[in-house]
Protein backbone atom coordinates (compact mmCIF):
# COMPACT_ATOMS: atom_id res chain seq x y z
CA UNK A 1 0.00 0.00 0.00
CA UNK A 2 1.30 3.44 -0.83
CA UNK A 3 2.71 5.74 1.84
CA UNK A 4 -0.15 8.25 2.03
CA UNK A 5 -2.64 5.46 2.72
CA UNK A 6 -0.40 3.90 5.36
CA UNK A 7 -0.09 7.33 6.97
CA UNK A 8 -3.88 7.69 6.93
CA UNK A 9 -4.30 4.32 8.67
CA UNK A 10 -1.59 5.27 11.20
CA UNK A 11 -3.48 8.51 11.94
CA UNK A 12 -6.64 6.53 12.58
CA UNK A 13 -4.74 4.09 14.80
CA UNK A 14 -3.24 6.98 16.80
CA UNK A 15 -6.70 8.36 17.51
CA UNK A 16 -8.55 5.10 18.16
CA UNK A 17 -7.38 4.46 21.75
CA UNK A 18 -8.91 1.01 21.84
CA UNK A 19 -7.77 -2.32 23.22
CA UNK A 20 -5.11 -3.87 20.99
CA UNK A 21 -7.34 -6.68 19.63
CA UNK A 22 -10.15 -4.24 18.70
CA UNK A 23 -7.65 -1.81 17.23
CA UNK A 24 -6.14 -4.50 14.99
CA UNK A 25 -9.62 -5.57 13.84
CA UNK A 26 -10.65 -2.01 12.95
CA UNK A 27 -7.41 -1.19 11.13
CA UNK A 28 -7.48 -4.53 9.28
CA UNK A 29 -11.04 -3.88 8.13
CA UNK A 30 -10.32 -0.34 6.96
CA UNK A 31 -7.18 -1.53 5.20
CA UNK A 32 -9.17 -4.17 3.35
CA UNK A 33 -11.76 -1.51 2.37
CA UNK A 34 -9.05 0.84 1.09
CA UNK A 35 -7.35 -1.94 -0.89
CA UNK A 36 -10.63 -2.80 -2.64
CA UNK A 37 -11.44 0.80 -3.43
CA UNK A 38 -7.90 1.65 -4.47
CA UNK A 39 -7.80 -1.29 -6.89
CA UNK A 40 -11.16 -0.35 -8.38
CA UNK A 41 -9.97 3.18 -9.03
CA UNK A 42 -6.72 2.01 -10.53
CA UNK A 43 -8.73 -0.27 -12.85
CA UNK A 44 -10.84 2.76 -13.80
CA UNK A 45 -7.66 4.49 -15.00
CA UNK A 46 -6.71 6.74 -12.07
CA UNK A 47 -3.05 7.19 -11.17
CA UNK A 48 -1.82 5.77 -7.84
CA UNK A 49 -1.79 9.22 -6.27
CA UNK A 50 -5.27 10.12 -7.51
CA UNK A 51 -6.68 6.78 -6.40
CA UNK A 52 -5.14 7.11 -2.93
CA UNK A 53 -6.38 10.67 -2.45
CA UNK A 54 -9.88 9.73 -3.60
CA UNK A 55 -9.99 6.80 -1.13
CA UNK A 56 -9.05 9.16 1.71
CA UNK A 57 -11.60 11.73 0.54
CA UNK A 58 -14.39 9.14 0.48
CA UNK A 59 -13.55 7.81 3.95
CA UNK A 60 -13.22 11.30 5.44
CA UNK A 61 -11.07 12.77 8.18
CA UNK A 62 -8.98 10.19 10.06
CA UNK A 63 -9.79 11.88 13.37
CA UNK A 64 -13.53 11.83 12.71
CA UNK A 65 -13.56 8.18 11.62
CA UNK A 66 -11.49 7.24 14.69
CA UNK A 67 -13.74 9.24 17.02
CA UNK A 68 -16.91 7.62 15.70
CA UNK A 69 -15.42 4.15 16.05
CA UNK A 70 -14.11 5.01 19.54
CA UNK A 71 -17.60 6.07 20.61
CA UNK A 72 -18.92 2.69 19.45
CA UNK A 73 -16.24 0.65 21.22
CA UNK A 74 -15.10 3.06 23.92
CA UNK A 75 -18.00 2.38 26.25
CA UNK A 76 -16.95 -0.47 28.50
CA UNK A 77 -19.32 -3.21 29.62
CA UNK A 78 -20.73 -3.42 33.16
CA UNK A 79 -18.32 -6.30 33.79
CA UNK A 80 -15.33 -4.13 32.79
CA UNK A 81 -16.68 -1.25 34.89
CA UNK A 82 -17.00 -3.48 37.94
CA UNK A 83 -13.53 -4.98 37.45
CA UNK A 84 -12.02 -1.50 37.07
CA UNK A 85 -13.69 -0.27 40.27
CA UNK A 86 -12.62 -3.32 42.31
CA UNK A 87 -9.35 -1.93 43.76
CA UNK A 88 -11.20 1.15 45.05
CA UNK A 89 -13.96 -1.06 46.45
CA UNK A 90 -11.36 -3.25 48.18
CA UNK A 91 -9.89 -0.22 49.93
CA UNK A 92 -13.38 1.09 50.73
CA UNK A 93 -14.11 -2.25 52.44
CA UNK A 94 -10.74 -2.30 54.22
CA UNK A 95 -11.49 1.00 55.92
CA UNK A 96 -15.26 0.76 56.34
CA UNK A 97 -14.99 -2.64 58.04
CA UNK A 98 -11.81 -1.62 59.90
CA UNK A 99 -9.82 -4.44 58.30
CA UNK A 100 -6.96 -2.05 57.50
CA UNK A 101 -5.40 -2.79 60.91
CA UNK A 102 -4.99 -6.48 60.10
CA UNK A 103 -1.68 -7.28 58.40
CA UNK A 104 -3.33 -10.35 56.80
CA UNK A 105 -6.03 -8.33 55.03
CA UNK A 106 -3.52 -5.71 53.89
CA UNK A 107 -1.24 -8.42 52.50
CA UNK A 108 -4.14 -10.12 50.70
CA UNK A 109 -5.26 -6.79 49.20
CA UNK A 110 -1.78 -5.84 48.02
CA UNK A 111 -1.19 -9.36 46.68
CA UNK A 112 -4.48 -9.26 44.78
CA UNK A 113 -3.65 -5.86 43.31
CA UNK A 114 -0.25 -7.02 42.08
CA UNK A 115 -1.72 -10.28 40.72
CA UNK A 116 -4.54 -8.51 38.84
CA UNK A 117 -2.15 -5.90 37.46
CA UNK A 118 0.15 -8.66 36.21
CA UNK A 119 -2.78 -10.66 34.76
CA UNK A 120 -4.11 -7.58 32.91
CA UNK A 121 -0.64 -6.70 31.66
CA UNK A 122 -0.10 -10.09 30.00
CA UNK A 123 -3.69 -10.27 28.68
CA UNK A 124 -3.71 -7.36 26.25
CA UNK A 125 -3.83 -4.54 28.83
CA UNK A 126 -7.63 -4.13 28.91
CA UNK A 127 -9.35 -0.97 30.07
CA UNK A 128 -10.14 -2.29 33.55
CA UNK A 129 -6.40 -2.64 34.24
CA UNK A 130 -5.63 1.06 34.73
CA UNK A 131 -6.98 1.64 38.26
CA UNK A 132 -5.24 -1.59 39.40
CA UNK A 133 -2.03 -0.28 37.91
CA UNK A 134 -2.33 2.96 39.88
CA UNK A 135 -2.50 1.01 43.14
CA UNK A 136 0.69 -0.85 42.22
CA UNK A 137 2.50 2.33 43.28
CA UNK A 138 1.25 1.83 46.81
CA UNK A 139 4.09 -0.48 47.95
CA UNK A 140 6.51 2.09 46.51
CA UNK A 141 4.75 4.86 48.47
CA UNK A 142 4.78 2.77 51.65
CA UNK A 143 8.51 2.07 51.18
CA UNK A 144 9.06 5.83 50.81
CA UNK A 145 7.09 6.54 53.98
CA UNK A 146 9.15 3.94 55.88
CA UNK A 147 12.35 5.72 54.83
CA UNK A 148 11.22 8.64 56.97
CA UNK A 149 11.60 6.45 60.06
CA UNK A 150 15.31 5.78 59.43
CA UNK A 151 17.83 7.67 61.59
CA UNK A 152 17.89 11.29 60.37
CA UNK A 153 21.15 11.21 58.35
CA UNK A 154 20.35 7.89 56.72
CA UNK A 155 16.85 9.02 55.97
CA UNK A 156 18.12 11.90 53.81
CA UNK A 157 20.57 9.69 51.92
CA UNK A 158 17.84 7.11 51.26
CA UNK A 159 15.39 9.78 50.08
CA UNK A 160 17.96 11.28 47.70
CA UNK A 161 18.32 7.84 46.09
CA UNK A 162 14.61 7.00 46.37
CA UNK A 163 13.14 10.12 44.73
CA UNK A 164 14.86 9.91 41.30
CA UNK A 165 14.08 6.17 41.17
CA UNK A 166 10.40 6.79 41.90
CA UNK A 167 10.22 9.69 39.40
CA UNK A 168 11.78 7.45 36.75
CA UNK A 169 9.33 4.65 37.53
CA UNK A 170 6.28 6.96 37.49
CA UNK A 171 7.46 8.54 34.23
CA UNK A 172 8.01 5.16 32.58
CA UNK A 173 4.58 3.80 33.61
CA UNK A 174 2.85 7.06 32.63
CA UNK A 175 4.44 7.07 29.18
CA UNK A 176 3.35 3.47 28.59
CA UNK A 177 -0.19 4.19 29.77
CA UNK A 178 -0.44 7.44 27.86
CA UNK A 179 0.43 5.67 24.61
CA UNK A 180 -2.81 3.70 25.01
CA UNK A 181 -5.06 6.59 26.09
CA UNK A 182 -4.15 9.62 28.19
CA UNK A 183 -7.64 9.74 29.71
CA UNK A 184 -7.04 6.34 31.30
CA UNK A 185 -3.77 7.68 32.72
CA UNK A 186 -5.80 10.50 34.26
CA UNK A 187 -8.17 7.91 35.74
CA UNK A 188 -5.14 6.07 37.13
CA UNK A 189 -3.84 9.27 38.76
CA UNK A 190 -7.15 10.35 40.29
CA UNK A 191 -6.66 8.70 43.73
CA UNK A 192 -3.21 10.31 44.25
CA UNK A 193 -4.33 13.74 45.63
CA UNK A 194 -7.01 12.05 47.71
CA UNK A 195 -4.56 9.59 49.29
CA UNK A 196 -2.09 12.43 49.93
CA UNK A 197 -4.97 14.41 51.46
CA UNK A 198 -5.72 11.56 53.91
CA UNK A 199 -2.02 11.22 54.80
CA UNK A 200 -1.93 14.94 55.59
CA UNK A 201 -5.11 14.72 57.64
CA UNK A 202 -3.84 11.73 59.61
CA UNK A 203 -0.35 13.16 60.12
CA UNK A 204 0.39 15.04 63.32
CA UNK A 205 0.87 18.73 62.43
CA UNK A 206 0.31 17.85 58.79
CA UNK A 207 3.48 15.73 58.54
CA UNK A 208 3.64 12.44 56.67
CA UNK A 209 6.14 11.01 59.09
CA UNK A 210 3.90 11.35 62.15
CA UNK A 211 0.80 9.37 61.19
CA UNK A 212 -1.68 9.15 64.03
CA UNK A 213 -3.27 5.71 63.89
CA UNK A 214 -5.90 6.92 66.29
CA UNK A 215 -6.94 9.59 63.84
CA UNK A 216 -6.97 7.09 60.95
CA UNK A 217 -9.34 4.98 63.08
CA UNK A 218 -11.46 8.06 63.68
CA UNK A 219 -11.62 8.88 59.94
CA UNK A 220 -11.89 5.25 58.74
CA UNK A 221 -15.48 5.61 57.58
CA UNK A 222 -14.69 8.84 55.73
CA UNK A 223 -11.69 7.17 54.09
CA UNK A 224 -13.89 4.21 53.10
CA UNK A 225 -16.48 6.58 51.69
CA UNK A 226 -13.90 8.45 49.60
CA UNK A 227 -12.68 5.15 48.08
CA UNK A 228 -16.34 4.27 47.46
CA UNK A 229 -16.69 7.58 45.59
CA UNK A 230 -13.62 6.68 43.52
CA UNK A 231 -15.22 3.31 42.68
CA UNK A 232 -18.46 5.01 41.58
CA UNK A 233 -16.46 7.46 39.45
CA UNK A 234 -14.60 4.61 37.80
CA UNK A 235 -17.83 2.78 36.94
CA UNK A 236 -19.35 5.95 35.46
CA UNK A 237 -16.09 6.68 33.56
CA UNK A 238 -16.04 3.24 31.92
CA UNK A 239 -19.73 3.43 30.99
CA UNK A 240 -19.58 6.91 29.42
CA UNK A 241 -19.05 7.16 25.67
CA UNK A 242 -17.89 10.73 25.08
CA UNK A 243 -14.35 11.66 26.01
CA UNK A 244 -15.22 15.19 27.14
CA UNK A 245 -17.81 13.82 29.55
CA UNK A 246 -15.22 11.45 30.99
CA UNK A 247 -12.82 14.33 31.62
CA UNK A 248 -15.51 16.50 33.23
CA UNK A 249 -16.49 13.53 35.42
CA UNK A 250 -12.90 13.09 36.63
CA UNK A 251 -12.61 16.78 37.56
CA UNK A 252 -15.95 17.02 39.32
CA UNK A 253 -15.69 13.76 41.15
CA UNK A 254 -12.04 14.37 42.19
CA UNK A 255 -12.97 17.78 43.56
CA UNK A 256 -16.02 16.47 45.42
CA UNK A 257 -13.94 13.70 46.97
CA UNK A 258 -11.37 16.28 48.11
CA UNK A 259 -14.22 18.24 49.69
CA UNK A 260 -15.21 15.01 51.45
CA UNK A 261 -11.65 14.65 52.79
CA UNK A 262 -11.76 18.25 54.04
CA UNK A 263 -15.16 17.64 55.65
CA UNK A 264 -13.95 14.60 57.60
CA UNK A 265 -10.68 16.30 58.55
CA UNK A 266 -12.37 18.47 61.19
CA UNK A 267 -10.33 21.47 60.15
CA UNK A 268 -7.00 19.59 59.95
CA UNK A 269 -6.89 20.30 56.21
CA UNK A 270 -6.40 24.05 55.88
CA UNK A 271 -7.74 26.03 52.91
CA UNK A 272 -4.27 26.64 51.35
CA UNK A 273 -3.50 22.90 51.55
CA UNK A 274 -6.91 22.11 50.05
CA UNK A 275 -6.20 24.52 47.18
CA UNK A 276 -2.75 23.00 46.68
CA UNK A 277 -4.33 19.53 46.50
CA UNK A 278 -6.84 20.83 43.95
CA UNK A 279 -3.97 22.21 41.87
CA UNK A 280 -2.13 18.91 42.19
CA UNK A 281 -5.23 17.08 41.01
CA UNK A 282 -5.61 19.39 38.01
CA UNK A 283 -1.95 18.86 37.18
CA UNK A 284 -2.20 15.09 37.49
CA UNK A 285 -5.36 14.90 35.38
CA UNK A 286 -3.99 17.10 32.60
CA UNK A 287 -0.31 16.11 32.57
CA UNK A 288 -0.98 12.82 30.70
CA UNK A 289 -2.44 14.88 27.82
CA UNK A 290 0.75 16.97 27.72
CA UNK A 291 2.95 13.86 27.82
CA UNK A 292 0.92 12.38 24.96
CA UNK A 293 1.34 15.59 22.97
CA UNK A 294 5.06 15.53 23.57
CA UNK A 295 5.36 11.91 22.48
CA UNK A 296 3.38 12.64 19.31
CA UNK A 297 5.55 15.68 18.51
CA UNK A 298 8.66 13.61 19.06
CA UNK A 299 7.45 11.11 16.48
CA UNK A 300 6.70 13.67 13.75
CA UNK A 301 9.44 14.10 11.15
CA UNK A 302 11.26 17.42 11.40
CA UNK A 303 10.64 19.55 8.32
CA UNK A 304 13.73 21.07 6.69
Amino acid sequence: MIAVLNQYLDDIRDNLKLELADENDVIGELKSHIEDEFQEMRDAGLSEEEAANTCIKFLGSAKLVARQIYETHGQGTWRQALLASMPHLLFALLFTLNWWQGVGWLTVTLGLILAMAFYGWVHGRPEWLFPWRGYCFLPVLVAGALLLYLPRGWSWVAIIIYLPLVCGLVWSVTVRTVKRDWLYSALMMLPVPIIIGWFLVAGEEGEFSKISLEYVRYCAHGIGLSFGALAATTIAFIRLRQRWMRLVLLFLSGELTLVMVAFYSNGRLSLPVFLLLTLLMLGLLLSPALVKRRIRRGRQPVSP
Partner: protein
Amino acid sequence: MEQRLDLMKGSSEPLLLCLIGQQPMYGYQIIKDLEKKSQGYFKFKEGTLYPALHRLEKAGLVTGKWEMLPSGRQRRYYYITDKGDKLLALKRSQWQNFLNAMNLIIQPATPLVEG
Protein backbone atom coordinates in the same frame (compact mmCIF):
# COMPACT_ATOMS: atom_id res chain seq x y z
CA MET B 1 -29.20 16.33 -1.16
CA GLU B 2 -29.70 17.78 2.34
CA GLN B 3 -33.34 16.66 2.35
CA ARG B 4 -32.32 13.20 1.19
CA LEU B 5 -29.89 12.90 4.09
CA ASP B 6 -32.57 14.02 6.55
CA LEU B 7 -34.85 11.27 5.37
CA MET B 8 -32.01 8.76 5.65
CA LYS B 9 -31.29 9.65 9.30
CA GLY B 10 -32.35 6.76 11.46
CA SER B 11 -32.81 4.53 8.42
CA SER B 12 -29.18 3.58 7.89
CA GLU B 13 -29.16 0.75 10.40
CA PRO B 14 -32.34 -0.94 9.09
CA LEU B 15 -30.88 -0.59 5.57
CA LEU B 16 -27.66 -2.28 6.66
CA LEU B 17 -29.59 -5.04 8.41
CA CYS B 18 -31.70 -5.57 5.31
CA LEU B 19 -28.68 -5.93 3.03
CA ILE B 20 -26.78 -8.21 5.41
CA GLY B 21 -30.00 -10.20 5.89
CA GLN B 22 -30.02 -11.02 2.18
CA GLN B 23 -26.46 -12.37 2.19
CA PRO B 24 -23.30 -12.05 4.31
CA MET B 25 -21.38 -8.98 3.15
CA TYR B 26 -18.18 -7.02 3.79
CA GLY B 27 -18.01 -3.24 4.19
CA TYR B 28 -17.02 -2.18 0.68
CA GLN B 29 -19.53 -4.59 -0.84
CA ILE B 30 -22.30 -3.04 1.28
CA ILE B 31 -21.53 0.44 -0.05
CA LYS B 32 -21.54 -0.73 -3.66
CA ASP B 33 -24.64 -2.88 -3.25
CA LEU B 34 -26.63 -0.15 -1.52
CA GLU B 35 -25.82 2.31 -4.25
CA LYS B 36 -26.63 -0.18 -7.00
CA LYS B 37 -29.90 -1.45 -5.53
CA SER B 38 -31.19 2.04 -4.79
CA GLN B 39 -30.11 3.16 -8.29
CA GLY B 40 -27.74 5.71 -6.82
CA TYR B 41 -30.27 7.20 -4.38
CA PHE B 42 -28.51 5.98 -1.25
CA LYS B 43 -24.82 6.82 -1.00
CA PHE B 44 -23.39 5.76 2.33
CA LYS B 45 -20.68 8.06 3.63
CA GLU B 46 -17.85 5.55 3.83
CA GLY B 47 -16.40 6.84 7.10
CA THR B 48 -19.72 6.36 8.87
CA LEU B 49 -20.29 2.82 7.59
CA TYR B 50 -17.92 1.03 9.97
CA PRO B 51 -19.10 2.78 13.16
CA ALA B 52 -22.67 1.84 12.12
CA LEU B 53 -21.68 -1.79 11.45
CA HIS B 54 -19.84 -1.98 14.77
CA ARG B 55 -22.86 -0.56 16.58
CA LEU B 56 -25.01 -3.32 15.06
CA GLU B 57 -22.41 -5.87 16.08
CA LYS B 58 -22.26 -4.55 19.65
CA ALA B 59 -26.04 -4.74 19.83
CA GLY B 60 -25.82 -8.42 18.78
CA LEU B 61 -27.75 -7.84 15.55
CA VAL B 62 -24.90 -8.88 13.24
CA THR B 63 -21.68 -10.74 13.77
CA GLY B 64 -18.39 -10.14 11.96
CA LYS B 65 -16.08 -12.95 10.86
CA TRP B 66 -12.71 -12.72 9.19
CA GLU B 67 -12.51 -14.89 6.07
CA MET B 68 -9.47 -15.73 3.99
CA LEU B 69 -9.72 -15.14 0.22
CA PRO B 70 -7.96 -17.40 -2.31
CA SER B 71 -5.55 -14.48 -2.89
CA GLY B 72 -4.45 -14.71 0.75
CA ARG B 73 -6.13 -11.45 1.71
CA GLN B 74 -8.62 -11.30 4.57
CA ARG B 75 -12.02 -9.69 4.64
CA ARG B 76 -14.45 -9.21 7.48
CA TYR B 77 -17.89 -10.51 6.51
CA TYR B 78 -20.99 -9.56 8.46
CA TYR B 79 -23.72 -12.13 9.14
CA ILE B 80 -27.16 -11.36 10.51
CA THR B 81 -27.98 -13.00 13.84
CA ASP B 82 -31.35 -14.39 15.02
CA LYS B 83 -31.85 -11.22 17.05
CA GLY B 84 -31.08 -9.15 13.94
CA ASP B 85 -33.55 -11.23 11.90
CA LYS B 86 -36.32 -10.58 14.40
CA LEU B 87 -35.61 -6.86 14.50
CA LEU B 88 -35.51 -6.73 10.70
CA ALA B 89 -38.95 -8.37 10.46
CA LEU B 90 -40.29 -5.82 12.94
CA LYS B 91 -38.71 -2.88 11.07
CA ARG B 92 -40.09 -4.17 7.75
CA SER B 93 -43.61 -4.24 9.09
CA GLN B 94 -43.18 -0.79 10.68
CA TRP B 95 -41.92 0.61 7.38
CA GLN B 96 -44.78 -0.96 5.45
CA ASN B 97 -47.35 0.55 7.80
CA PHE B 98 -45.59 3.91 7.62
CA LEU B 99 -45.51 3.84 3.79
CA ASN B 100 -49.17 2.86 3.56
CA ALA B 101 -50.16 5.71 5.85
CA MET B 102 -47.91 8.17 3.98
CA ASN B 103 -49.39 7.10 0.63
CA LEU B 104 -52.89 7.68 1.92
CA ILE B 105 -52.02 11.25 2.86
CA ILE B 106 -49.52 12.23 0.21
CA GLN B 107 -51.40 11.05 -2.90
CA PRO B 108 -52.99 13.90 -4.87
CA ALA B 109 -56.67 14.13 -4.08
CA THR B 110 -58.90 12.68 -6.81
CA PRO B 111 -61.42 15.24 -8.04
CA LEU B 112 -65.00 14.50 -7.09
CA VAL B 113 -67.16 13.64 -10.05
CA GLU B 114 -70.56 15.19 -9.81
CA GLY B 115 -73.21 12.75 -10.81
